[in-house]
């Protein structure tokens, strides 16, 4: 049964699982699962090498080489770090949109809330209000404002953002399809506006003995945002690394990404993941089979949002600043494009899509723009038309490979015209081409064919 419960792990566990799986006698029905597993293991190994070596030496060793061999820029530390940040977000959105099938167009809101968690908890900002608290931090005692260590911020951000995800989800998840998209779109617009405009808050609240009174208080830094934010200090064996620059930031990002992948994968292969799949496939049938749809969707929303919380607080700590104009609506769309390009429903697809688009956005397009600028300054800079280019890519993708780079098994079946027949062939079943939907076994008697077509039709009433 081990093959069906899918025991692909990362790194060492993946290898052990692979070797163990190969040594064991393999019943034929698990061969497909094993092939999938072997492919995953190879991919993981390559990924592992790239991940460990590239940030440390790749940029310095390969950069010179690449400049001579092919004229493409390699992602530097900053771009690599942003790749991991966006990959974490893409994984989170993939839980909401890919696993549970809920279209969330306001995902940037959670990203912003995560970033402002870091901004509030690790900056001198609140020093102006006379709130000074240095807690377990690496900032010297007596510093103005609140200073909390990075890991604690991350945990707080996860909890806060997941709470906001649940708060948004509770009233809106009764909506289906397009309506949910519209409401989340609104939420994605509202939250950054809040952060932009809460720069002079006058507010008073009396709760028995507790009196909260604010007069013209700058809560979020307004348009300027909040800075400086403490860098992510990582204590390892008595040393404290400042992961704001250089390969350390990339490693921190990759570490967070690895955790994100593991968490998402574990969720996918659990009763929650199956319940999400059931809701995505047929919400009514899922409900009738005992799935508490509202609770399950809420969980998808909250858990998916928490990934954006991690990405947001990491990003704010990494950049040392948090401004509201960074959290534009276009980020929601960008992350969604990443998920779709990579292959919606597939974690590795989301990672690949995020890597590719971030590279394109932050490395390749500016580079091309620069080159064009050198040669012909009057031509438009492609970096300024990035969304036009993503649009074209998306259209081409939908035309030629709608299932994405690395499609999930489900989505591939839904979108490829011949996917069904391929799948059947793989299963060793003969396909009757004139009756693709169903392959009747001994169903040659009168009328059954016509009746089949009728009953398997997508009738939405029960």
């Amino acid at each position, binding site marked *: 049964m081990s093959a069906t419960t899918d025991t692909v792990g990362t790194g060492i566990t993946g290898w052990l699982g692979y070797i163990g799986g190969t040594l064991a006698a393999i019943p034929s029905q698990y061969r497909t699962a094993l092939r999938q597993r072997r492919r995953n293991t190879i991919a993981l190994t390559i990924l592992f090498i790239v991940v460990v070596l590239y940030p440390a030496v790749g940029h310095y060793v390969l950069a010179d080489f690449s400049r001579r061999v092919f004229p493409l820029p390699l992602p530097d530390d900053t771009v690599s770090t942003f790749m991991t940040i966006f990959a974490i977000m893409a994984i989170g959105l993939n839980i909401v949109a890919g696993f549970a099938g809920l279209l969330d167009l306001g995902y940037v809101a959670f990203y912003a809330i995560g970033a402002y968690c870091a901004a509030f908890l690790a900056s001198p900002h609140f020093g102006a209000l006379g709130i000074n608290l240095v807690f377990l931090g690496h900032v010297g005692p007596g510093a103005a404002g609140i200073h909390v260590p990075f890991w604690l911020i991350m945990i707080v951000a996860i909890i806060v953002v997941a709470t906001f995800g649940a708060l948004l989800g509770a009233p809106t998840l009764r909506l289906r399809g397009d309506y949910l998209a519209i409401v989340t779109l609104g939420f994605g617009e509202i939250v950054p506006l809040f952060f932009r405009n809460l720069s002079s808050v006058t507010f008073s609240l009396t709760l028995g003995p507790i009196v909260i009174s604010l007069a013209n208080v700058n809560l979020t830094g307004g348009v300027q945002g909040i800075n400086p934010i403490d860098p992510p200090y990582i204590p390892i064996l008595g040393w404290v690394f400042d992961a704001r620059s250089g390969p350390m930031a990339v490693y921190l990002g990759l570490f967070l990404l690895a955790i994100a992948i593991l968490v998402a994968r574990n969720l996918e292969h659990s009763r929650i993941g199956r319940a999400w799949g059931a809701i995505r496939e047929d919400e009514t049938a899922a409900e*009738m089979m005992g799935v508490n749809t509202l609770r399950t969707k809420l969980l998808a929303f909250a858990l998916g949002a928490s990934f954006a919380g991690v990405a947001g607080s990491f990003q704010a700590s990494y950049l040392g600043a948090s401004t509201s104009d960074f959290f534009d609506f276009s980020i929601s769309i960008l992350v969604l494009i990443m998920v779709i390009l990579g292959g919606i429903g597939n974690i590795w697809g989301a990672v690949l899509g995020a890597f590719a688009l971030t590279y394109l956005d932050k490395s390749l397009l500016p580079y091309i723009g620069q080159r064009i600028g050198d040669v012909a300054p009057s031509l438009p800079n492609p970096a300024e038309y990035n969304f036009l280019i993503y649009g074209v890519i998306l259209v081409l993708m939908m035309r030629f490979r709608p299932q994405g780079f690395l499609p999930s098994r489900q989505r591939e079946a839904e979108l490829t015209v011949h996917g069904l027949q391929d799948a059947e062939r793989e299963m060793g079943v003969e396909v009757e081409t004139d009756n693709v939907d*169903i392959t009747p076994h001994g169903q040659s008697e009168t009328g059954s064919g016509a009746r089949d077509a009728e009953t*398997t039709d997508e009738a939405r009433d029960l």
Partner: protein
Amino acid sequence: MNTTEVVELGTGSETDDKMLVHARGVTKRFGGLLAVNNVDFDIPRGSIVSLIGPNGAGKTTFFNMITGYYVPTTGDISFDGHDIVSPGRRGRVKSLKPHEVTALGIGRTFQNIRLFGTMSALDNVKVGINVHLQSHWWDAILRTPGMVREERATVDECMQLLKLVDLDHRSETWARNLPYGDQRRLEIARALATRPKLLLLDEPTAGMNSSETRQMTDFIRKLRAELGLTVLLIEHDMRVVMGISDRVTVLDHGEVIAEGLPAEVRANPRVIEAYLGRGAAGES
């Protein structure tokens, strides 16, 4: 079977105890359309009961009220000592949610097959068992030993169910890629995974030829014998209904027009009239 529990609850007499489902005065109105009108309906424990009637008689609507999908306009439905539909506040009717009803022990299939098409047969059945699993999302993230054990037990139980419906060799095939008859049986396996006391089958032999139909009726009998299930059946095929049912209830225009043993119902002039028209009833 929670027979003892029912007695302890003391909700009623012996008749209540014998009846797994007890419905009184169930009415469902869709705007101006009276789909189900004042239906009284009981299902004895361990029986196979059929609900028949012409198209649009309200059979599926009634099904959907038992399973909590529709809230009746008025009425009471109790199942195994628990209220599914009961009078709520301010004259409104209170109904359990479908997933709560499923947890109580009612499993169902659909008239139009509604499997989770691009999930494997095994995963489809696993979804059915979900309602009885204890592990939480944090167990899933951390892969706690309890969760892993539960997952393993789930696979075993689901594979047994697939074996019962003779689909264990196709556990990894997507539901939508299965042949039609297999899909019907997979739906039953999925319903059985919810560990039901009552199994609701909505036209289980629709679109089947006579030999498949025979297999299906044998299978339904086997379910009752081996799993001690009570079965409520909606069916159009009269051979199936007459052959398998302990009792038959006939609905027409949302009302019960006949109820009794299959032979009694078959001879009932109102039933013949409903199915074949007034002239036919007069002739017989």
